[in-house]
């Protein structure tokens, strides 16, 4: 969490995550570039090294992006994979670096050696926008690259704070148009000339997996999504039975204004806070109370469940809600309190079978 900004707050898990990533990328590139029959037999590849490198880095960036995009829906389908969300931004930054290298090889090869400036040449060399075959597919790649660079530079928590979480999150949905552009870039470029069918097949499968996982997660959320709070008299909304909430956990309710509230039980007292984490809007209600503090399932930000405040020295604040319990049912007032407002927890009978 944020007291002051350092480039990266490292810890063992991040080292491991990045370590595996680097090894994976290194192995991909190494095997792609060097374990080829012509190379092993000692013959120089007859193809230009620049083009070979451009291919290797391009394919690598595509696969990395496909994996990144699969993590989100996978975590929604099985929360155990939420661990992969942690540090996903490093994955993203590394992907942008690989994509930028691909761009460098192309720009300094295909677009170099002419009298024109190579960046300008990239824009004017092919302007057949009216046709599919021969379309300037480079533009799709350029768009995706710019998106990835924007996302990487703004991935740091400084920008998150600066732009505020909702704006930041909306900005980071750019990853979807970027991926669509990459798919178009490959389909109208490399695939037009591909004579082997391994890459085309893998390309289609990867894109289908990414799309399929998103559809599956969407359907899953529809079926198992957060229950809509029911309106009852005097503006209160029913969330659930008090006994539905386990110790240290929450139940989430969808309020009429579209906000989600998370009602937590701590020491048999209930408190209601906003479900959206101040960091990246992670679902706090899917987190747990660890050491007396609500812990976000995404990156572990902590909050006091009674006040919605992060413990000192941190300064994050989220809204709290007033709640009441009547006939063992939990009701919430949908009008959120100012972030950080203390609300006295409401005592409820202990759960059966739990000490």
């Amino acid at each position, binding site marked *: 969490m944020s007291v002051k900004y350092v480039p990266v707050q490292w810890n063992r898990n991040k080292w*491991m995550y990045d370590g595996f990533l680097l090894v*994976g990328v290194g192995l991909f*590139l190494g095997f792609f570039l060097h374990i080829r029959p012509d190379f092993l037999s000692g013959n120089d590849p007859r193809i230009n090294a620049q083009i070979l490198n451009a291919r*290797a880095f391009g394919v690598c960036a595509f696969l990395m992006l496909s994996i990144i995009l699969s993590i989100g829906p996978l975590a929604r389908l099985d929360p155990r994979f939420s661990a992969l969300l942690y540090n996903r931004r490093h994955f993203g930054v590394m992907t942008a670096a690989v994509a930028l290298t691909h761009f460098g090889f192309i720009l300094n*090869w*295909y677009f170099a050696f*002419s009298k024109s400036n190579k960046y300008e040449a990239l824009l004017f060399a092919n302007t057949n926008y009216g046709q599919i075959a021969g379309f300037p597919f480079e533009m799709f790649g350029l768009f995706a690259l710019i998106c990835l660079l924007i996302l990487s530079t703004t991935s740091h928590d400084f920008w998150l704070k600066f732009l505020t979480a909702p704006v930041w999150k909306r900005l980071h949905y750019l990853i979807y148009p970027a991926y669509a552009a990459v798919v178009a870039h490959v389909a109208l470029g490399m695939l*037009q000339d591909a004579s082997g069918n391994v890459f085309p097949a893998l390309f289609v499968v990867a894109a289908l997996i990414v799309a399929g996982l998103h559809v599956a997660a969407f359907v899953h959320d529809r079926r198992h999504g957060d229950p809509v709070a029911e309106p009852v008299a005097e503006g209160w909304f029913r969330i659930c039975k008090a006994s539905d909430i386990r110790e240290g956990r929450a139940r989430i309710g969808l309020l009429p204004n579209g906000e989600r509230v998370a009602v937590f039980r701590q020491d048999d007292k209930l408190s209601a806070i906003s479900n959206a984490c101040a960091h990246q809007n992670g679902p706090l209600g899917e987190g747990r109370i660890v050491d007396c503090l609500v812990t976000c399932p995404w990156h572990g930000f902590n909050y006091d469940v009674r006040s919605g405040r992060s413990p000192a020295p941190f300064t994050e604040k989220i809204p709290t809600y007033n709640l009441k319990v009547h006939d063992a049912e939990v009701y919430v007032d949908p009008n959120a309190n100012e972030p950080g407002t203390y609300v006295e927890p409401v005592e409820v009978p202990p759960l059966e079978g739990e000490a």
Partner: protein
Amino acid sequence: MNDREDTPFFIGYLQVPQKLRKLLLVTALALVGFLLGAGLLIGRTQDTDPGGGAFRFDYGQQTVSGVVENLAYPLFHVTEGNDRLKPGQTLMLTGSGKDGVSNRTLPMVGKLATAKGIVLERGSLEMLQLAGGKRGLSEAEKQSSVSVPKPEDLGRWKLTGEICDGKCLSGAMRPGRGLAHKACANLCLFGDIPPVFVSTKPVKGSEFLMVLGPDGGALPKEAYDFIGQYITLEGAVARHGDMLVFKMDPETIELAS
């Protein structure tokens, strides 16, 4: 929610819960394994055959004498050659990078000249990348009574194939054709590099023909929409020295299947 009691809870900055460790390790190894396998498989099955064109630095710099002909793009008819480049051969000329040399050849049309440079070669297609300035192309001191060989008219043809830029195709880029290479080819053509048609069926023994507009001028604008694509088109073919020249008719261009 599928928040079962026993679902382990991962907090990034704490130790990974025991129950999650195995899953995460397996996932990480599967990921690394996937990347390794994909690299190996895609790398091995990619097309690494650029079709046999290359810069022949191994020949060293070549010096030949010959006559300069200037169609929209320059040709050089060798009169006095060496072991590699024999009298009677016709070379396309280029400058370094994506630059043609018309500005240098124009004053020398029909004259005897000495050309120095590096050969690019793809089958029967030959190009000479001239060294810079006077060193690359200079008028011969003694002008004997040589002249540009008389072109031989080979009639009208309908051909199927692809328009490329002559330099990348001859081996400056490997591979130097196809749609992924289109923008690069366009840049060469903008730079006055001679365009070459690669015909799927050889015309009088050659699959390569230098392309001109219908009136013998530079590549018509309409053709740029079809660079790197598989097309059919019609035009008049003539032999200049040992090089075929194709005056294409842009109205006849059609995408081939």
